[in-house]
Every structure is written in structure tokens, then in C-alpha cells.
């Protein structure tokens, strides 16, 4: 076992873990971060996307043991983040979700895209979303929702 100390969603966590534990499993089991949805566990589908030290990342292909001292945010901790609040509303209004399994990863990815690129055009946005698989929507509502949220947030700035 290995001791790690890190901050998750603003709170300090210190615990002993099996060194082979993935970050996704650790966060789901130790801090009930059930918004992390595992769709492939090999870094392709994007369902487990979170924020590690300010950067969007996949929690399924990171080891918890490497996260000593890290600052981590999951969708739970971002629930009052202005971009996430707007994205949730836009996904609702634009029918950007069906079963909801890919949704947390989509929201965090979209937040990152908007933070970095503002209001990207549709072609760029689709490329930027290509690391997140949705099997239900055909992406039409998702793309529309992210564009809607980006416009709303830009208007606010």
C-alpha cells in the first residue's frame, strides 16, 4: 500500500492505496465521485474525463499513486462553476443528452474547449469533441448545446 495526499474538489484526502489502483477507481470508491463514468478504461471514450492540476485528463489511464499533491476536480466539485452551470442548462435546452452516461465527460470537455477557444466554429468543435464518444445522440444536440453555452458565456464576459 502507498500513502497519497491530494485535494479533490477542494477537500484534502489522505489515504493508503494499492499502487495499481487507477485514479478513476480511487475517486469513485474513496470520494464517491460517481460522475466519473467508465466506458472503456483505456483512454478512448472520454466518459471518465476530469480536471487534474487545471488540465483536462482521463482518470481511467492515470494511476492514483502518481497523484500525490495533485489538485483534482470532478463534475461534483464543479457543480457551481459558471461554465458548467451554463453547459448543464444548454445541454437541457438543446437535447444534448439521452442516456446520460457520456454526459459528465462531455460537460468537462466542453468547459475546457470553451475556456481555451471561446466560440469555436462547428467543424473545429466537432474535432475537439472527437475524444468523447456518445452512442445515443449522434452528437447533434451536443454540438448545438456547446455552441449555445459558448455564446451565452461570451455574451456574459
Amino acid at each position: 500500500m502507498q500513502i497519497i495526499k491530494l485535494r479533490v474538489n477542494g477537500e484534502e484526502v489522505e489515504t493508503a492505496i494499492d499502487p495499481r489502483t487507477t485514479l478513476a477507481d480511487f475517486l469513485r470508491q474513496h470520494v464517491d465521485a460517481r460522475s466519473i463514468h467508465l466506458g472503456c478504461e483505456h483512454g478512448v471514450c472520454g466518459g471518465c474525463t476530469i480536471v487534474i492540476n487545471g488540465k483536462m485528463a482521463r482518470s481511467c489511464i492515470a494511476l492514483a499513486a502518481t497523484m500525490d499533491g495533485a489538485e483534482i476536480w470532478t463534475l461534483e466539485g464543479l457543480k457551481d462553476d459558471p461554465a458548467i452551470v451554463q453547459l448543464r442548462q444548454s445541454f437541457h435546452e438543446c437535447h444534448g443528452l439521452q442516456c446520460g452516461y457520456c454526459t459528465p465527460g462531455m460537460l468537462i470537455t466542453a468547459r475546457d474547449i470553451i475556456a481555451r477557444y471561446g466560440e469555436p466554429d462547428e467543424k473545429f468543435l466537432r474535432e475537439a469533441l472527437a475524444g468523447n464518444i456518445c452512442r445515443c445522440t449522434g452528437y447533434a444536440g451536443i454540438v448545438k448545446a456547446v455552441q449555445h453555452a459558448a455564446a451565452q458565456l461570451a455574451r456574459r464576459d
Partner: protein
Amino acid sequence: MDALTVPNGKKGIGGSILRNEDERLLSGRSTFIADISQPGMWEIAFLRSPVAHANILSVTKPEGFEQRVFLLSDLGDIRPIQADSQAKGFRRSDYPALANDRVRFVGEPIAICLGRTRAEAEDLAQAVFVEFEELPAVSDLSQCRDPAYPPIHPGWNDNLFLETHIDVGDVDAARAKAAVSLTRQYRMNRQAIVSLEGRGVMSYIDERTGELVVYSSTQFPHVIRTALAHCLNMQERELRVVAPEVGGSFGVKNNLNPEEIAIAALTKKIRKPIRWVEDRREHLIAAPHAREHRYEVTVHADKDGLILGLEASIDVDAGAYSVWPWTSPMESGMAIGFLPGTYTISNYRATARTCASNKSPMGPYRGVGRPGACFAIERTIEELAVHLGLDPVEVRLRNYVRPDQFPWKSAGGKTYDNGNYAESAIAARDLIKPERLTELRQRYADSDYLIGLGYATYLEQTAHGTAEWVQRGLPVVFGYEQAALQMTPDGMLIIDVPIQNHGQGLETTLAQVANEELGIDPAQVVVRHGDTSMAPYGMGTFASRSMVMSGGAVGCASALLADKLRKIGAHLLQVQDSDVRLEDGFVVANASGGAKISLKEIAVAAFLRPERLPDDVDPGLSVVASYRTSRDTGAWSYGTHAAIVAVDRGTGMVHILDYVIAHDCGTIVNPMIVDGQMMGGLAQGIGTALYEEMPYSAEGQPLASTFMDYLVPGASEMPHTTIEHLCSPSPITRYGIKGMGEGGAIPPPASLCNAVNDAIRSLGASINETPMTPDRVLRALLDAQAGSATA
């Protein structure tokens, strides 16, 4: 795609209202199967077969861990899955919960291993020693009746589940009369289904009720309860099956799984909570697969393209076992039944073979059988048009069943309810604008891009009831649906239904149906589903049935509840029952002035102040109603898709430049949700057409076991799409609704293959196989080049 949200002010049927279920899903806090646990719960890893076909000579459990590894013999007296078709000549396969003496596909479960974590359980699975005696693996349809491959099931003499025939009219006369007879071969290869959340089961004993509680990520909890009771020798009252939040399904969670039986049996035995969460590799190799059809089709036609007769030979690889309750011949049965499509074909002769192989069993996937049948007939009609030098839409228009011919009894034995197929084709043609082709071809003339246009018309039988399922010979007949409505004392409504919502928006659309009858705001309605201890018995969500069947049941129950509300309301308003109406949460007197009383006040009287009720009205506001369609051969949605593609002759890549859909699903309950279903189906259809394939090696090893080698469409693969809704309300369903969940996925392989062929025809090339990967497209181009070089 501008139609996703157009608020039109309506809250009932026809309103694009936003979804009731979104809030919990957007928080990420809802509970999927991996989010459900019990104190002291053990995690499961299945030891799965690494070989395709072998006798199991021995299994040795790791020393010291004998109590954490369980074989079939450890699970007590349980029955295998026996999905027996009633069709004459069907050969049975016993599908055991855990393989005992033989394994028949890579991924078949052999043992359950328990660990405190999944990783521990996997360690244990790796430490189990199995001695196999390998046997030749049946890995291709061509081996089905080859004596070099011994039968994979005892008592069989080859590897055929079933062969069926249709011979309607006089095909020989049609052939003799025909000006043209064309024969073509088509292949739609095997694919995985891929819900983003895999399958999963968590079970425990509820020591208070004594129930064996089984949480399963399933589409039909009541039916699973019935099946588990049979397999475990239990009474249904001893079982509770719950489907929690289900992260996508598309048919793959619509089967009785051996894993479900094994886990339930083990829980019953050890009386400890256990959980299995399927990982992606397990899903890709061991969850039911789909498609894998091969066709040889011959069309006989006159010189104007009028079809005189159709002949077909159909082969489907159904994998190692017959899945319950669908049975292995479902795919080939649908293919042979749907091949005549939307056309007035009266002379039809066909053979359909359901072959067994050492591959994962074939299960239902969005479209079931019809994507293959549509691919074969729509490719054929386009080939006919090309051969005759005619416009493909014009040839279709000459052959469609006309609106005055309904109900149409097809040569495939189906009864179509209504529609205007020609209208959908003309609408699609108007949307895609074929006149653009000349300009597009000029624009790309100096590039590697070859431009093509293709069409496909499809049929989607939905909400079929008793007659259809009896005809298909299934062990279960899905003839009806029930709904239970209860108003609460504060005037809100709870609807309990046995169907299961896994993305379709049924918590919203069923509330819209209640609004239609009761005038209650859909936001005030809670729809609960997925739990056998809450809802009355019912069949679940599949086959595009829930909006029609469960919508019908909610409509019937709401109408009964409305009668009671009006009666109490009229009494409280001191007017005649016939002089009131329900509107916006009130019972309103029709008389001028329109005195009104709220549903809340009525609910208070019904539950808390019975002295206010009329003498002939019983307290309470609860209703259970059952619904079936007036004719139970199905409500038939249909439509025409059209695509313009650019084929890169240098790389073989297919780019979709534009895509249009003109479809008719009868009365639309929520246009926003219908658009969402259509786009989701289209994405899966594009996956079938261009990307998704589950190949096997000659040894029966699945060759795509991660998302690196099994490709599903991403956001950048989806084309600009226009959807037009036509509306012919079904004459056989309440409100005229038709189901539409599968239609989007049915014709894209056909429309895109037609478009690709249109693009590469000028080079003398053709392609008749999905997915149309760059490799296959390049091969088609190279074959044409080689052909013209030797010619």
C-alpha cells in the same frame, strides 16, 4: 439540424417540451449499476474462455481460494437458457450459465471469481487452471455445412439452427416474362453493439422480505424476473428485479444473459451481495453481437423497372447459442420477411439459413434484421435502375405500395398499416437536390474526390403485438403493456410502468400523454420504471414499442382517472358530470363563468376528506390499465434517406457531404425527442456502413477487443443532416402514434453504399459489403483497375 428544439407551446402530444429526466443525469449523480452497492459486497470477475471451441478436461481452483471460485457444479440445480423457436426444424442449443464440459466461443464464462476489488477478482481468475482439448472452430458462414467442421452442439448433424423458405406467387413465370434479371451478392459483416455503459448485475438477499434482489442493467426487468424464476427453480414472488439508470442499450441489454443467471444463483447460494460490472473488452467479445448477413438476390423486372419477381438466398451467422427470448433465427426471419420492403412484389421465393458458429451469440441490435434486408433490396433496386439507365427514384416510384393499397399484405408475410412511401422519396429528393451533383463533380474534378448520390427507403415495423410474435415463433409473446397511475393527495401524479427508459425520454413523453388526457402539467408527473416491485407486469422497452404500447396504456389509465376526476369535480362544483372538462390542472365547468376546482382539491377529497365525495364514488385515485393495439401486426414507420458522398480515390476514405431524412412515424409525441432518436440511429447506421466491424480469425479469435480497433463514429464523423417529418397517423394505435427508435439506423448502410457506388461507377468499380472501410474501397478501385487492364 435545426429542429432539435422548437418550443411550440404544446405540453401534451406534439409538444417539444424539455425532458424531465435531464436534471439528475446532468449532475452526474444518478445511479448506474456500478454506482449501486451493498455493505460487504464482493466484486466479480468472470473467467472467460480464451479459445473458441474446446472440451474442458479439468478446472483447478487456486489453492487456498477454493471458496472464492465457483463453477457450474457449485451453483446448484439451475437450468440452462433454452431459447427455442417454434419454427419446424429448429435445432435447440442449451446455453449454460457457466460452461461445463465444453466452450463454444471466446469469452464464454467458465467460472465466477470473487474479490474485495475487481482487480483481486481478476487476479483470481488468472490463477484458475483450465485444461482444454481444442476442437476446430467454425469461424465463417461458408463452413456451416462443411463436414470438416463437426457440429458444435450434441445431436446436430451440421451447424445449421434452421432453414426457412418462402415461395409466394409464381417466380418462374416472372422470370420468363422479365426483360431483365439481375443477380447481386451483398455482405453486411458482424459488429458489436456497444452501449457506452456495459452490462452489469448486482444482487443480494433482502433479509426482511426474503427476496433475491437482482439489479441488472436491462431493458425488461419483469421478463427477466420470469426467466430467472424458471432457470433458478424459484417463484416469481421470491424475486425482485430492478433496472437502475441504464447507460445505453440498443438491444444488447435485451437478452437473458448467462451472467445474470450465474450471479443470481450464486447469491442465492452464498447469500452475500455480489456485483459484476462488464468491462469494454468483455462487452466487445462476449456480449451479444449483431448483423453478419450474406445475400444473393435476383430481381426480375420489365424494361421500365417494374419488379415482376424477387429471389433471394440469405445466410446469417447467429453465433454459438440461441439467445432468449429472441431465438437464433430472429435475424434471418426478419431478413427474409422484410426483403420485399416498400414494394408491390407479389412473386417472391427465398431461403434463409441461420447458421451456428464459434462466435458470440447474435442478439437484437437497433433495426434487427432490417438494416441487412434494406441494404440488399435497396442496393438491388439501385442496380436495376443503373442497368436500365433509369433514375433510381423513378424506379422506386413505379414499385412502391400505393396509399390506396393499405393494409398491404407483403410477400414476406407482414401486414403494413398505412403510409405514402412515394411522398417520402420525393421529399428526400427535393431535400438532397440531385441537380447539385453536376456542379459538385465539376468542383472536385481536379481532386481525388469522386462524388456520388444514393437513396434508400426503409420500413420499420413497430409496436407489433400478439399476432406478429406468435408468427415469429418466440417463447414469449409481447402483446400488450400495462400502466399504473396514482394521484397523490397534493394533486400530483405518479405513473408506474414496466417499460424501461434508457435514453428515449419516456419519463417526459409518457407525462405528455397524461397531460393530453388529464390536463396536468408534465413537469408535475413522475414516471417510475424498471422495478418489478413497483410497476404491474409488462414487457419492457425494445422493438420501438414503448411510445405506442406504454403510451397507450398510460392514455387508457389516464382516461379512466379523468372520468373519476371529472365526476368528483362536478360534484364539488355542483354541476352535472357531463358539464365539466379537465384543463391545466383544474376541473372546469363548461357553463359560462367557468367555475373551477383544482386537481389538488379533488385529490384532498379523494384521499383525506372522503365525506366530500359523491355517494357512488370510492375514495382513492389509482388506476391500472392494460393496452394493446387494435390490430397487432405492427404500426409501420418508414422513410427515405439520401446521401451525397465524396470518395477519396487516393485513400479509400468516404466523406459524407450531405445527408437528408424524410420520414413518417405517425403522430409525433415530442418532435425534439424524435429528432434526437433519428440522429442517434443515423450515427449507428453510419457506423454499420463505414466503421464498425467485429472480425474473427480462422481460429475463432475476435480481432477487435478495444476502442482502438473497434471504431464507433465520433462527432466529426457525423454529417450535416436535414430531417423532414411526414405524418400518416397509424389507424391501429391510440393517438395514431408509430414507434421510431430504430428507423434512423436501418437505411444508412444502403443509402451510403448506393452513394459510394454512384461515385466509383465511373471507374468501373463496385462495392457491396459493409463496413466500407478505406481498405475495402481501395480494393474495389484496384480490382476495377486490374479488370480493365486485363480486359
